[in-house]
């Protein structure tokens, strides 16, 4: 059991990264419009995040410092502040969207307007950050979020034509009635969603929270190799369900209820209830991850004491910052902005911020002063460099595609 819980950090990071409210809806949108023809992007994204999370986890375990602390030290405040600015804005947008997502999921259960749930959701997130031990938080959010396996169950229950799904998944299959530019816009969006910077900051800060040392390198690797592929598989299951049920009927996905339609059809009320529990846990997990990430990045950049392992009084500015972020989030949501649209935009901006985040990580992971004998091997460096090229391409293409396609219309 301890082994299973030992990978909870990886699972929570992946859930918060791949399966937050925006990604769930994006995956369903992609499935309903493109079938599984964008599945290869999820695979590429999962491999990419595994490579970089593994590096940042190793950096945290060997040097005892989280990634962002080392970015400023190694690369100087100018580079770090660019990175920080981009990451913080994305974190803020995403945490706003996640609080909205928790409220939307609660609205589905209770038929009470989501605007009324927003303050409660934010308060609940804050209470967990304030009092709950890090390991308890990651275990509960991670494991309950795994209820999203219901989507995979639903996919099997729907008895799809597997050969048809396989045919769609082959890269290069026709895009049907959709434009090529829209196809690539969603490719960039899915890639940005898989490799969002806050995943890496949360994972490495979480490694420090848990006190990982050189002895925990194998555990770090296990977290990465279990958590992120699992997140990727669940993303594909959501897209698959949409591809099987919504695509043939040309049903477009604009709300959370449509994401869950295939599950309701496949497994009835029981499976639907399981999914809703999973969605609440996953969006809450994502809200926790992004709020904590916002705190971690600023505190680590400015040299403040940070961490949930400290009593709040000993990490006062860290906690105050997160409280302010949550209040800003509540305020933004109360203006009535659609939380799902907020994440879809923030995912695209994540793609733009990717090179600023991942190049420093690669540099730090190769630095013998911090890593001693645990610097990157040649193979890892080679893969990471290939990914940097892909990341750069995605970053350059993101904004033009956003404009050309009108955010995927």
């Amino acid at each position, binding site marked *: 059991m301890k082994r299973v819980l030992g990978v909870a950090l990886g699972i929570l990071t992946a859930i918060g990264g791949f399966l937050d409210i925006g990604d769930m809806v994006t995956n369903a949108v992609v499935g309903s419009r493109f079938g599984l023809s964008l599945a290869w992007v999820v695979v590429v994204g999962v491999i990419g995040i595994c490579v970089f999370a593994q590096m940042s986890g190793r950096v945290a375990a060997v040097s005892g410092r989280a990634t962002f602390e080392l970015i400023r030290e190694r690369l100087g405040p*100018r580079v770090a502040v660019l990175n920080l600015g981009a990451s913080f804005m994305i974190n803020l947008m995403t945490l706003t969207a996640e609080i909205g997502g928790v409220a939307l999921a609660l609205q589905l259960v209770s038929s009470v307007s989501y605007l009324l749930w927003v303050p409660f959701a934010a308060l609940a997130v804050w209470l967990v950050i304030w009092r709950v031990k890090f390991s308890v938080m990651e275990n509960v959010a991670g494991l309950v979020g795994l209820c999203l396996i219901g989507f995979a169950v639903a996919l099997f229950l729907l008895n799809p034509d597997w050969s048809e799904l396989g045919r769609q998944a082959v890269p290069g299959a026709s895009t049907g009635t959709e434009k090529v530019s829209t196809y690539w816009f969603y490719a960039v969006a899915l890639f940005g969603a898989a490799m969002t910077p806050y995943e890496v900051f949360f994972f490495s800060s979480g490694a420090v929270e848990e006190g990982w040392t050189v002895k925990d390198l194998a555990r770090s690797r296990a977290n990465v190799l279990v958590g992120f592929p699992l997140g990727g598989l669940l993303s594909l299951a959501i897209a698959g369900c949409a591809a099987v049920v919504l695509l043939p009927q040309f049903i477009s996905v604009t709300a959370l209820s449509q994401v869950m339609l295939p599950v309701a059809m496949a497994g009835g009320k029981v499976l639907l209830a399981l999914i809703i529990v999973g969605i609440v846990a996953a969006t809450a997990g994502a809200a926790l991850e992004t709020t904590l990430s916002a705190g971690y990045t600023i505190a680590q950049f400015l040299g403040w*004491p940070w961490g949930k392992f400290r009593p709040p009084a000993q990490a006062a500015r860290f906690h105050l910052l997160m409280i302010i972020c949550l209040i800003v989030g509540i305020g933004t949501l109360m203006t009535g902005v659609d939380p799902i649209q907020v994440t879809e935009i923030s995912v695209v901006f994540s793609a733009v911020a990717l090179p600023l985040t991942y190049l420093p990580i690669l540099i730090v992971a190769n630095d013998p002063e911090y890593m001693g004998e645990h610097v990157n091997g040649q193979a890892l460096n080679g893969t990471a460099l290939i990914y940097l090229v892909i990341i750069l391409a995605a970053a350059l293409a993101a904004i033009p595609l956003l404009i050309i396609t009108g955010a995927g219309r």
Partner: protein
Amino acid sequence: MAVVDDLELSDVPVGQQIPIDTPPPVITALLSGPVLATRIFGGRPPDSRMQRTPWAAVAEVGVVIKLAVDQDTRDAAWTERWVRDNVIGRIPGGRHVPEQEQDDHPQNEERGRS
């Protein structure tokens, strides 16, 4: 506790001949202060805006500099103390100590120069 932003060295006369056997300058204090804008754009804040941590307080020098004194007494930690006493300390549960899971978390230290 804070980021080391500058070092205070013992006096070195400028523009004069220095006798050959003069000892080299030594670090007398670590300085921390509002340097973010000046590091990015240029220049430096005046000495009166920087908080001093005397070198006598330093216990160990590595990737981080560990101090031998309680950080609560340091001027450089004043914003943290202020937020703790006036904001966070007043919220219920603010001083609650979560169970320690490991003992090797960094405590009481300054990070090296960036």
